[in-house]
């Protein structure tokens, strides 16, 4: 069998030669990927690696360092450094021969099959993969807009926002209130807000034990709710209060200038306010008319847009059916899409779509929980096959083991994305 290392070395060398326009055979089909996150980076790497250099792969991503949202809550809780969440695109370019373009895609011309770049120029494609994550819906939380994101951070795209929220947490006055405005469904990472509450509570219980946490939630219930609430009662008794829709959690206005929240007409002063607004597909998809009511609907066997068969949409932006919007899911969908793109462009074998997902969350030191499922392509949506979730009352050993698993997963998925 081909040794992967040697093989990859060859691809890189080959790509180097082909980059010279004179040698570039126009015959090489072009796959272009917008967004170098969980979906996009994985798709680019799998297409480049598995096509033996037969497909020309371009990855368009504005940032030079991708900070994973996954484990960013652990950074808030003091379990990770921010540096440990950052990943660069160097290996994808050097070892996989992927043409990494650090720029914003500003438009998709679906007829001409080109992607326009903010820096000028355009990139032609035979197949396009779009995995731009999420954008927030302006006006979803009255009083909040992206202009207010420094006063009231979302920290739902990782990086400087996450660092800002951590700094605000550290500087919070003794006995102060940390408020979270939780998002309505569907949103990226269903357990994410509640893992965040756990991590904030962990930090506060050590550094500011009289502080309290107020969750304003428009949802009746949330992911792994029984497990989180059990954990909060055990580890952070009395610290966390959640106001659901019955008590006005869905009727919230924020006032960033005065650091107030208005819940069902009642004004309350808060010290830190984490606003996670309602979400929609990345704006590039909205602009290219690939969305219907906020999300881009895809065909489950290939992740192709129902509006344009030359375009595959992955991850958070896709409306695919039963999978949650998670990094694990985006990575899983990327592999199916990569296979479908290779099949379309080089006639490689097509296998039945298989997806899976596991979302780990940390409640406190060595108390990890998880939820997950396997999925398959149904008629017009992705369907769950089998599911599992951590149980109440598991032993400390099982919980510690679950947390250790998540560490292994983090290392594996990030090398699966970035090589």
């Amino acid at each position, binding site marked *: 069998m081909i040794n992967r290392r040697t093989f990859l070395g060859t691809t890189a060398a080959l790509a180097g030669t082909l980059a010279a326009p004179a040698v570039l055979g126009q015959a090489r089909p072009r796959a272009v990927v917008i967004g170098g996150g969980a979906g996009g980076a994985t798709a680019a790497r799998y297409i480049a690696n598995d096509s033996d250099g037969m497909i020309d792969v371009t990855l368009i991503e504005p940032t030079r360092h991708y900070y994973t949202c996954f484990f960013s809550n652990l950074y808030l809780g003091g379990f990770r450094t921010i540096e440990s969440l950052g990943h660069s695109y160097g290996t994808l370019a050097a070892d996989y021969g992927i043409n990494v373009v650090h720029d914003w895609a500003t438009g998709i011309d679906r007829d001409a099959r080109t992607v326009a770049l903010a820096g000028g120029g355009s990139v032609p494609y035979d197949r396009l993969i779009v995995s731009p994550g999420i954008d927030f819906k302006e006006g979803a939380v009255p009083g909040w807009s992206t202009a207010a994101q420094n006063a009231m951070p979302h920290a739902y795209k990782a990086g400087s926002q996450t660092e800002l929220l951590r700094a605000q947490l550290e500087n919070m006055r003794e006995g102060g209130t940390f408020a979270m405005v939780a998002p309505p469904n569907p949103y990226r990472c269903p357990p994410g807000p509640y893992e965040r509450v756990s991590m904030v509570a962990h930090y506060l219980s050590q550094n500011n034990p009289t502080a309290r946490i107020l969750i304003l939630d428009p949802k009746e219930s949330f992911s792994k709710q029984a497990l989180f609430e059990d954990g909060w009662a055990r580890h952070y008794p009395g610290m966390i209060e959640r106001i659901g829709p019955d008590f006005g959690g869905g009727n919230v206005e924020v006032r960033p200038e005065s650091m107030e929240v208005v819940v069902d007409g009642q004004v309350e002063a808060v010290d830190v306010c984490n606003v996670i607004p309602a979400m929609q597909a990345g704006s590039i998809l909205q602009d290219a008319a690939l969305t219907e009511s906020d999300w881009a609907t895809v065909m489950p066997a290939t992740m192709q847009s129902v509006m344009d068969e030359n375009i595959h949409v992955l991850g958070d932006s896709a409306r695919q059916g039963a999978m949650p919007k998670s990094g694990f899911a985006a990575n899983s969908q990327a592999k199916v899409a990569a*296979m479908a793109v290779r099949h379309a462009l080089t006639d490689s074998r097509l*296998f039945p779509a298989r997806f*899976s997902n596991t979302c780990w969350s940390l409640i406190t030191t060595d108390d990890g929980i998880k939820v*997950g499922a*396997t999925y398959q392509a149904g008629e017009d949506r992705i369907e769950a*096959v089998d599911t*599992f979730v951590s149980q109440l009352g598991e032993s400390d050993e099982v919980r510690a083991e679950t947390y250790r698993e998540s560490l*292994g*997963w983090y290392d*594996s998925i990030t090398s699966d994305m970035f090589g």
Partner: protein
Amino acid sequence: MVRRVLLPILATLAGAPVALAQEGDAERGAVLFRQCNSCHVAEPDGPSRTGPNLYGVLGRTAGALEGVRYSPAIREAGEGGLIWTVETLDGFLQDPRGYIPGSRMSFRGLPDLQDRMDVIAYLTGDAPVVHSSELGRLSPEIFTIEGDVEYGEYLSSECVACHSASGSDEGIPVITGLEPEAFILALHDYRDGHREHQVMTTVTARLTDEEIASLAAYFAELEE
């Protein structure tokens, strides 16, 4: 490496099979293994000398390692379904030529049970312990299904989201480098409920025997 492995073997006492748990001491086994060193090494990627490299022998079909000059007797035993497990190795080490008549291995054997368990613990290393009784749960044909390597490669993309391809076993075990038989056994065990793990039970639930064989074939190729 300080590793003590509990090796439950089936011993026949007074005619009745009795489960006997015997602890193997890998460190002592390493010292005992010096008697074997003139013909065998037991190292990852180590060479085969007169006899095969014994690294990861548990779970391997007898006479199946590439590039080794086996006696016809050992090869035939393998073709007949002999897989090295705690129990079969125990039997072989006790009396090599009695266990496989025609074996070229000129070693008188280790009469002492504790010595044998220590050597087996040493050979097991960090790999999962494989028992005959477990293999016996699967019909021998399971191990002979020919896997589709390309399909296995596609299916493996689900595995590597969690199992590091680069060999770090922090939190989640490494699955590259397992003998195909051990790999096949492990997946069947999860699927059939002989081993418990929420993720693995769910992931294997939908795998067919052919898909398991394809995965095993792919991971085996990856190693070479």
